[in-house]
């Protein structure tokens, strides 16, 4: 049997045209087969296949995939590479999906390490990799859980205790079944609390994502209202293709805007309009709705030259509950009648007359964004979780669920229950260092009067 299959983003993080996610290890083809639609039954190595990244049938991105068979690959092992649109969400989705299918996030330098071990890199190249690791060692050591201060390590320590207690309980039942006072099972029940704590961490990790990546601000509005122009005006560069044809921005595009040392992730997305026959656009629409749902705030844009229509009302409804700024674009073409109707339609919201094209009154937008910053909740309650930790925690959550299910089942086989608990402890071990049999036995002797 081979080593674990690893996965990571291979291109520099951030924006570019294309992002490459790379898998290495014996399971590469199997993992690719599960997350990529478009591979024939017997794929040819070193051949590019067009298809879709998908999550249980739901398409996430159109992409290209290539398989490599060891030793004819970068690492010398079986490998797969997926070229995706360089979008952090898509990249994260691809890595998470691969992890769900049995891969694990690669450690720093691991691809190169494997390549070197398999004789694919010479010493000089490998030294360079080592240097890279050295220079990244601050980030690297942050991945070492023991160094993490604060809530995360406390929470994980709590879950570790709960798992250890469950292990002690179940193992005692196995080793000392004749000691009749030993009633196994109580410790396992304590895992429900651990599962809840994990949910909290994982939910918290979404908040810390917001801190790391910046607040998400979506530009919403019906087709051709000028969203892309606003996006570009705010970023002061031509990023998305603007044209007079409705529906040009078929997918969303994201860019980071820095303001007062804090970043905002500005999303420009497909115009919202009722489903069309065009499948790709339909998919873009669906994703736009998703973007709205994920956004921390919305710039809601209407046309100052036209009274609001059904689409505007619908989009207004969809962005209900979000922090929202009402923008009336095309101030140069504004008509009083239209503005009056806008005020009527959206009572309680002040329309800010702007011109995305000329940059008129964009200060209203930056003022709104700064205000968002001031209203941010106190970040001290947040839990910093990186992707590797997050993957492990999600697996741990899954393991806890299986343990609780098994425990609740009709015939909980003690040794299989113990096996799942061990796997949970192994996962914790990957965060905190190994939990040994001796730790468990120590718990057994400390908690139970054992021995006839």
């Amino acid at each position, binding site marked *: 049997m081979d080593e674990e299959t690893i996965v990571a983003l291979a291109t520099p993080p951030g924006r570019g045209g294309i992002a490459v996610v790379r898998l290495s290890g014996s399971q590469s083809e199997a993992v690719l087969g599960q997350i990529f639609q478009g591979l024939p039954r017997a794929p040819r190595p070193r051949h590019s296949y067009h298809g879709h990244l998908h999550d249980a049938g739901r398409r996430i991105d159109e992409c290209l995939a290539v398989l490599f068979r060891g030793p004819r690959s970068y690492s010398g092992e079986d490998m797969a590479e997926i070229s995706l649109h360089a979008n952090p969400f898509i990249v994260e989705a691809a890595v998470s999906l691969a992890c769900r299918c049995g891969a694990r996030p690669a450690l720093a330098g691991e691809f190169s390490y494997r390549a070197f071990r398999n004789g694919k890199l010479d010493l000089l190249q*490998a030294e360079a990799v080592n240097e890279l690791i050295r220079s990244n060692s601050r980030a690297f050591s942050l991945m*070492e859980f023991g160094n993490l201060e604060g809530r995360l390590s406390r929470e994980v320590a709590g879950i570790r205790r709960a798992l250890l207690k469950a292990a002690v309980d179940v193992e005692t039942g196995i080793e000392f079944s004749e000691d009749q006072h030993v009633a196994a099972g109580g410790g396992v029940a304590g895992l429900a609390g651990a599962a809840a704590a994990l949910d909290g961490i994982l939910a918290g990790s979404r908040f810390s994502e917001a801190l790391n990546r910046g607040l998400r601000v979506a530009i919403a509005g019906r087709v051709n209202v000028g969203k892309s122009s606003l996006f570009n005006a705010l970023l002061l560069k031509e990023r998305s293709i603007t044209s007079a044809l409705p529906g040009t921005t078929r997918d969303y595009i994201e860019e980071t805007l820095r303001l007062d040392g804090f970043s905002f992730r500005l999303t420009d997305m497909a115009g919202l309009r009722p489903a069309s026959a065009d499948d790709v656009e339909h998919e873009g629409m669906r994703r736009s709705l998703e973007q709205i749902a994920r956004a921390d705030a919305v710039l809601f844009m209407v046309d100052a030259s036209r009274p609001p229509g059904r689409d505007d009302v619908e989009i207004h409804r969809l962005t209900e509950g979000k922090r929202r700024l009402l923008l009336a674009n095309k101030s140069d073409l504004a008509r009083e009648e239209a503005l009056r109707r806008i005020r009527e339609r959206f009572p309680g919201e002040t329309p800010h007359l702007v011109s995305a094209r000329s940059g008129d009154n964009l200060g209203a937008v930056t003022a709104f964004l700064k205000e968002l910053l001031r209203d941010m909740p106190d970040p001290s309650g947040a839990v910093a979780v990186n992707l590797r930790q997050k993957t492990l925690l999600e697996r741990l959550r899954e393991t806890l669920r299986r343990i609780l299910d098994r425990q609740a089942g009709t015939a909980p086989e003690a040794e299989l229950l113990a096996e799942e608990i061990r796997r949970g402890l192994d996962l914790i071990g990957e965060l905190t260092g190994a939990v040994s049999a001796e730790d468990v036995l120590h718990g057994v002797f400390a908690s139970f*009067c054992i021995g006839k």
Partner: protein
Amino acid sequence: MRIVVIGGGHAGIEAACAVARMGAEAVLLTMHLETVAQMSCNPSIGGIAKGHLVREIDALGGAMARAADATAIHFKVLNRSKGPAVRATRTQNDKAAYRGYLMDFLESVPRLQLYQSVAAGIEVRNGRAVGVRLLEGGLLEADAVVICSGTFLDGRIFIGAASYPAGRANEPPSLQLAENIRALGFATVRLKTGTPMRLHADSIDWGAFTPQPGDEPPQPFSLAPPRRPRNRVLCHLGHTGPEVGHIVRDHLHLSALYSGKIAGIGPRYCPSIEDKIVKFPDRERHHFYLEPEGLRTKEIYANGLSSSLPVEVQRMILKAIPGLERAVIVRPAYAIEYDAIQPTQLHPTLESRQVGRLFFAGQVNGTSGYEEAAGQGLVAGINAVLRARGEPPFILERNEAYIGVMVDDIVRRGVDEPYRLFTARAEYRLQLREDNVFERLGGHALRHDLVSRRDYDREARRLERRRRLLRRLSLAKSRLDDKSETLFQILKRPGMSLPDLERLHGSPLLRGMTLLDASYVEARVKYEGYIEIQEREVAKMKKMAATVIPPDLDFAAVAGLSTEIRQKLSQARPATLRDAACLPGVTPAALNAIGIHLALKHGR
């Protein structure tokens, strides 16, 4: 070629037998021929993890399983309600019959010579053992020596305030050998263990106890049991009450354990009655078992009442236990302190690192239990012959056998209390079962001439029958809950057993199959998936074990290690990447960093 084995206990017997079976000449040196194969403590063999060991010993041609089957008077499978991996066999044995059976057997083994004498020291020349000096004078020359001296090295017995040197009750210890071992430079550790009182059967009010019958049908240990197993006695379960707690607390200052007389460390899993009462003051009741020591003796072993209190206090305790008010002590409980060598001084072959061709096995290595001793005796005996012949060593891996887990544990980590096997110590527990010892160890046994070709073929045929049934289960279908599923899938459901499946399917599946055959098949079905995960772990473990960390590696030069981990590694100096992985707090990221560093600096 001659191998001398010192000590005629459970380790020594297996060592000498293995040597003789492999074609070398074995001399089994014992202080006292009458007590060869003595069960010094409880009258039983096996138990959880220990039953597993006994079957492994059997599969490797050892004597223990057959001796236990031949002399068992009560059979039980523990954890019967749990899955195949943790079910384990235990027998109660007639101690005198056990000694007799093994003595007869030893006398019949070709190339094995029994010799009653006292070892005074190991003769070492050029850094290797060349023989054993005897107290009577003279030197017994040997190509290798195996020391299986049990608790006899500087043994000292404690009962209350009294103490005297002994290897076992009223048997002299090995003082000269202990001194010699220390002089050879071995680091020793002082350990302690204890044994309960033996009572006269006629003085016990049996009506006060709950009878514990053996299992029907009884299940023997050996692949080829010497006779039909039969339950002949009952064990009994009883409880102490709060009164015993008061007595123990009032007299604690008289206990050798609590008065500070005993410095040795005792086993946590086998506490004395005073330990139980001190450490768990909230428990008013402690249970114990009454177990017959044999068919022709009235002695009853009071399992659970071991103590180092004075005999008069032991009597007071008995008086306070319902049913034992008039119990007569035939042999008092006692604690014993003894020297063990720190087993980190041994190779995984159990050969010592500092003196070549000198092997250690059994309790002298800091373990406890007859089965643990026997398993080590086997390993030491086999390796003594291989070493003397210049052949590659015999080392069982952690995923192959509990014997492998035990040896790896003690030589790698050492002991700080008497070491006992638990299934919890095995990472690959689902694979180390009582039902698959042949599959795991049959090949090793045949290769080293430990079993006959005929016995091997018989078990190979049995394995083929089991596999045939498995194939049948994956092909045949039955309807359950309105769905047609393969029998394999149906059996995989929680709570479903092979007999259940037979009823459902309506045709005999288990004809000609033993309980263990059924257990094997169930395990293969129920553990499917889990076993594959474990196999991946095994592959990873092997790869890591093969990556050697040079002893002079400067961990400060390894990029990407946290200061804390760096310190830990510098202190522990792990020999391989796997040893590093076993250190607390060492993460996979750290292991990766070390791996990269090694690849760069030391080539592949």
